């Protein structure tokens, strides 16, 4: 594992629903990453999902309807600790347009092993987050 792939709300929604217009696109990214995970020396990114994203996107791992996304992502939850909550608040102070959920994505980015890739439909805000946090990473537009 050589870095982190963060999913935003629409990425989760797209992966959850095989009929979502961006499902194929999102699934391609996840599949391409997974292929690198089966090398003898894996170079895949760890797929992570801030819990606020999972809540916003309605991803209940125990719901049978979530079986597709459970199977194809195996994404790990990122809990929001107090230190992350503080960073999220600070991010919203400097970027008032950020939603609470996006601020928690920012907090997750801030402490994720780099390089960080963000699978998102909100490229502008995510690039701003990366720039503000000074994190080595980039956006993969959904």
């Amino acid at each position, binding site marked *: 594992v050589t870095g982190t792939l963060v999913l935003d709300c629409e990425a989760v929604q797209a992966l959850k629903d095989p009929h979502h217009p961006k499902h194929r696109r999102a*699934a391609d990214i996840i599949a391409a990453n997974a292929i690198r995970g*089966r090398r003898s020396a894996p170079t895949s990114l760890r*797929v992570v999902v801030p819990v606020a994203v999972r809540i916003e996107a309605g991803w209940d791992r125990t719901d049978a309807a979530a079986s597709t996304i459970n199977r194809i992502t195996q994404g790990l939850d990122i809990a929001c600790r107090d230190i992350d909550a503080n960073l999220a608040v600070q991010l919203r102070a400097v970027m008032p347009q950020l939603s609470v959920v996006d601020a928690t994505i920012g907090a997750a980015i801030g402490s994720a092993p780099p390089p960080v890739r963000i699978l998102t439909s909100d490229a502008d805000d995510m690039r701003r987050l990366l720039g503000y946090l000074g994190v080595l990473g980039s956006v993969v537009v959904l």
Partner: protein
Amino acid sequence: LVAPATTSATGSLDKAADASRDHSSHADLPHLRPSLARLALATAELDGNDLAQRPELIERAAAELVVHQPDATPDDVLTYALGLAAGSNAA
């Protein structure tokens, strides 16, 4: 900060890899199964590779490479596409 959901990270990645190998997420939607070219394009995007801006070159590379190397990986396609790009730039 990263809390395991139900399995270890290594186990999770292995399972994700298995899912990808089987393309089982698309078992009921076979037309959505990713082609080698699409996987190569997605890999380029994950890497921030400039080849991501040249999907037609990746398509060509995948089509040509798979004839000689049926088990080619997306990274193999990108390596070959890079060579094609260098050749076209030199011409």
